[in-house]
């Protein structure tokens, strides 16, 4: 029997051993991997699973809690802190509203009346990172029956609760009942927060001043950070409501880097509306030609001026919508010249 020379045999043996070793490693890898339940195979994105170590927040409560306790009340239970990964443990399905708007941390604390255990409240301090983010979650949740709360720019009372924006914080004070005594305590905490919780004094929202004042429904501003009116490219859009006759009309403004970018957004939003059933309407207003649309019986107007994309949303009356659009254009033109 012929033999393979020793050198070639050793080479073949070495290659074989290498291949077997690789196969063994693959086998071990498969064996280990099979015990890991791959949830993505079932449509679940496992990157969304919070990591345990993040449960221990490093959030520092930005004020002395004891300084907030109103007269006749004491703290009830421990303070709680949540981050973007465990916020759902506090507010469940409402968490995305915050996490998609720049949410950083939530701090909560309950207070209870020393005389009546049925009178208690919970303080929610959402750190939204910026004033704009805080204003956004404040605006989109604003209750229809809100009553203005004096001495604060963005604040309202609604039944048993008080909601306000303080710098980058969106704050809720929710009472267990609708009683005057409880609301006095809620108001006291709000005032103390205004005094004790330091915020950037220079932060402001310039866009709000671009809305015309005539017929403006007081404190009706909202900010949609994303997906305004169901169109995903329509970001950072401010809205305000106007009372024109018996009708309430919504006007909107969004500032872009320049005219070109504003026109591109306006064009794509108009196309989005047309793709979804809107039809261009004729108008006697030359400035608005090609920009007024009928959308299932309601008027939509989308235009640009300077870096602003702006318009009217869901107006019942075309004439009133065009009139408000014209006022808005003039106001934005003035802003462009300032």
């Amino acid at each position: 029997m012929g033999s393979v020379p020793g050198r070639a045999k050793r080479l073949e043996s070495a290659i074989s051993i290498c291949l077997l070793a690789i196969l063994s490693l693959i086998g071990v890898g498969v064996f280990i991997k099979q015990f890991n339940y791959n949830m993505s195979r079932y449509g679940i994105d496992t990157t969304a699973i919070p990591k345990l170590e993040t449960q221990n927040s490093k959030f520092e409560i930005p004020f002395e809690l004891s300084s907030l306790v109103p007269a006749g009340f004491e703290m009830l239970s421990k303070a709680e802190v949540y981050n973007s990964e465990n916020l759902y443990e506090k507010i469940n399905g409402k968490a995305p509203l915050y996490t998609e708007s720049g949410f950083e941390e939530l701090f909560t604390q309950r207070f209870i009346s020393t005389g009546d255990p049925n009178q208690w409240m919970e303080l929610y301090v959402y750190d939204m990172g910026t004033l704009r983010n805080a204003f956004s979650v404040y605006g989109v949740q604003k209750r229809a029956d809100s009553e203005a709360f004096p001495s604060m720019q963005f604040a309202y009372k609604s039944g048993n609760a008080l909601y306000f924006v303080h710098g980058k914080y969106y704050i809720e004070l929710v009472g267990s009942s609708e009683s005057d005594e409880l609301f006095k305590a809620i108001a006291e905490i709000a005032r103390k927060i205004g005094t004790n919780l330091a915020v950037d004094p220079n932060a402001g929202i310039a866009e709000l001043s671009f809305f015309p004042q005539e017929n403006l429904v007081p404190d009706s501003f909202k900010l949609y950070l994303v997906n305004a009116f169901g169109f995903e490219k329509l970001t950072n859009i401010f809205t305000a409501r106007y009372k024109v006759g018996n009708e309430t009309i919504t006007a909107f403004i969004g500032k872009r880097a320049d005219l070109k970018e504003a026109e591109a957004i306006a064009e794509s939003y108009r196309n989005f509306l047309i793709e979804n059933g809107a039809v261009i309407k004729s108008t006697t207003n030359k400035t608005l030609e090609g920009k007024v649309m009928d959308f299932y019986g309601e008027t939509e107007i989308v235009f640009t001026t300077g870096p602003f994309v702006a318009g009217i949303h869901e107006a019942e009356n075309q004439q009133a919508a065009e009139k408000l659009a014209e006022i808005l254009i003039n106001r934005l033109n003035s802003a462009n010249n300032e």
Partner: protein
Amino acid sequence: MNEQSNKKLNRRQLLTRAGKAGISIAVAGAVSYLLYDAKGPKAGVEDEKRVTLKDFSIQHRPGQTMSIAKGPDRVKTVDKAIELLGGIERFVRPGETVAIKPNAAFASPPILGATANPELVAEVVRLCYSRGKAKKVIVTDNPINDPASCFTLSGIGKAASAAGAEVVLPKAHLFKLTTLPEGRLIKNWPIFFEPFRKIDKLIGIAPIKNHHRAGASMTMKNWYGLLGGRRNIFHQDINTIIAELAMMVRPTLIILDGTEVMITNGPTGGSISDLRRANTLIASTDCVAADSYGCTLLDLKVSDLPYLAKAEKAGVGTTDYETLKPIFATIS
């Protein structure tokens, strides 16, 4: 021999090597075939360690599947709604153990309507004892917030205890892994199981609420409270998980409370102005039908809540609740 001849194989060597290679391939193939598991991995969980919730539903009774009682007083409307379905005696037999699963998700006051109304829960407990002659009634949930705080601050714990129920708070050892065979998401997932292991009947009680993610939270969404683990990941596919929960849990009776409906800012609400009085309470053995009716109180259509169609397709119930000929009553 020279270098070239060293590399040549003779016929014997070639056949020997080919034979060895063939045997190796055959052995590898045979071993692979024997080890092949067509069903896929079991994620390290043995079948016998998994649990399955019992089917607590009762026999269908035509014309008595759904009742709708109108009125402002929950105690009166729930009494009437259950009476119209044949009375609590139809659902609870003497000596039975009943579990009531209210929505106790949040540590918030009853005034907000984010949780099941405590008076309503207490009345159902009383009915189980007084007319159903139940041996024992437990009230339990696995809330989102701290369980003790939820049962305390929502008022459910005190009301249920006062009515004679045992309130069971979730503990780690009460959770077991389950798999819904027809499910896509519920696979080897921990559920709040032990309180339901030895019960005879199961009653769900939920308020009607707007839900930022799901559109609405009603009786089907109420079963979310049985999920353990990092259940928030299912919010990515909220319609499927709600439908699967409805497939997994087969209750005896469900009560959907639309006396006050949370129309905005759900599921937590926060202000009483998030609520709208609808003075409606629904009792049913068909959770899909009940929720389909319930969504109308939120000014929604069945098509606005895709989980309803999914559950219907899975055979859980019907979205066309009118075919059940719901029994209406108004209580002044």
